[in-house]
């Protein structure tokens, strides 16, 4: 499996706080990589460097490089808008726009200049189908997205993210606000999506990481302690700190 993302000697500071320390990591293409670790360990910070969401936080300073398909995304000639089209994101709380279901999904493609109604219809249907939401909403596409349940809203957000056909999908604790059934649906969905997208997820639920990811990265105090195939990391971790964390001895 080829690596799509290459992070080298990445250091990130929020003012004086050293949030990521010498992080180097390769992330494979069309696979699910999970970031785990206690709160404040840097996992969400690293996730947000992948589409430069940290740029918006004042006082953030970055050293090192993050390459996607060989291009340094912190290079001078990189347009952040174009980057975020390639790297979509789904957040912890479902955040649909207060618009119709249809308009939520069509938002990205329209933003990128698509006006053709038939083409938009097709994208909306394909994205909703990929997000396993189509059958539940196909007769109410004009209804407000806010009328959907939390689990449906989150799947809508995934449909919205994939409507612009990104290469990478970032998920920041995307199921932590959902009930177990909705969580299961999202997990199944994510596993289907990995055939088309490179998925990087942050999760507080270690068993979720164990269930659905192919690789798992364990963070502690801004450093990567261990990165390995998920099955290996959860069965025979090499570092005692990983063992202690996944066994619930701290964190």
């Amino acid at each position, binding site marked *: 499996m080829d690596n799509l993302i290459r992070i080298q000697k990445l250091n990130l500071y929020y003012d004086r706080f050293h949030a990521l320390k010498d992080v180097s990591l390769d992330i494979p293409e069309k696979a699910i990589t999970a970031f785990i670790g206690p709160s404040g360990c840097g996992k969400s910070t690293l996730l947000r460097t992948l589409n430069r969401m940290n740029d918006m936080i004042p006082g953030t300073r970055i050293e090192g490089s993050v390459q996607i398909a060989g291009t340094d995304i912190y290079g001078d000639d990189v347009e952040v808008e174009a980057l975020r089209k390639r790297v979509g994101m789904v957040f912890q709380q479902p955040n649909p726009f207060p618009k119709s279901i249809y308009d939520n999904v069509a938002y990205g493609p329209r933003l990128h200049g698509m006006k053709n109604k038939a083409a938009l219809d097709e994208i909306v249907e394909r994205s909703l189908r990929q997000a396993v939401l189509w059958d539940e909403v196909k007769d109410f596409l004009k209804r407000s997205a806010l009328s959907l349940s939390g689990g449906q809203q989150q799947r809508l957000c995934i449909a919205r993210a994939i409507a612009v056909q990104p290469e990478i999908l970032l998920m920041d604790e995307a199921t932590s606000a959902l009930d177990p059934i909705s969580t299961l649906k999202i997990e199944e969905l994510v596993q289907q999506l990995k055939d088309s997208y490179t998925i990087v997820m942050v999760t507080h639920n270690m068993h979720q990481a164990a269930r659905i990811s192919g690789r798992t990265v364990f963070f502690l105090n801004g450093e990567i302690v261990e990165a390995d195939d998920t099955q290996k990391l959860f069965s*025979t971790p090499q570092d005692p700190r990983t063992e202690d964390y996944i066994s619930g001895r701290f964190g």
Partner: protein
Amino acid sequence: MIQRKEFDQNLEDLRQLLRQMGEHVEHALTESIDALQALDSAKAKAIVARDVELNQMEEQVMEIGSRLIVTQQPVAKDLRRIIVAFKISSDLERMGDLAIDIAKVTTRLEGQKLIKPLIDIPKMSELVILMVRESLQSYLDENTDLAYKMAKDDDEVDHLYSQMIHELYAFMIANPESLQQAMLLTLVGRYIERIADHATNIGESAVYLVTGHRPDLNQ
């Protein structure tokens, strides 16, 4: 973490159950060989009667282990502790059954005299009792060196077993009237040899618990 404390206590309960099962097997094997040497069928019957305790302990191991898997969703070494407890308890249960098979030979020989003094059987059983003790100890202390050392003794057991078989075959040919008893004694040798194999399995489980990899100690 309170939850972790209870979990650790339950893992310790499993460990203690296996220790007790090991002691039970060691005792049953010692007694069954003593009973055979003395052709003491009363003693042999007492061993058979106590087997139910071993089965109950095995069930307890299954029950605690399954409950921990469901409620604690253990990973890494915690999970191996439980997998290993299942495996070792089933090895010990089989060893207990084999000790009973030896005791049943004694009850079938009731009223007879031994055709010859037992030499290799006591030697084998002495070695196997040591293997049982050391295999359990290697698990309890998570001592892989002891597991490997113990497994080496299995070669000597196999050697004694084959020596004993040859002797008994020769004896059967020379003394056809002793065929039935000689056959039963070869079976005893076979049972003891099987117990040694289960002890080797326990040593493998001990290594797996520590390293996450299961070696083949039978080679």
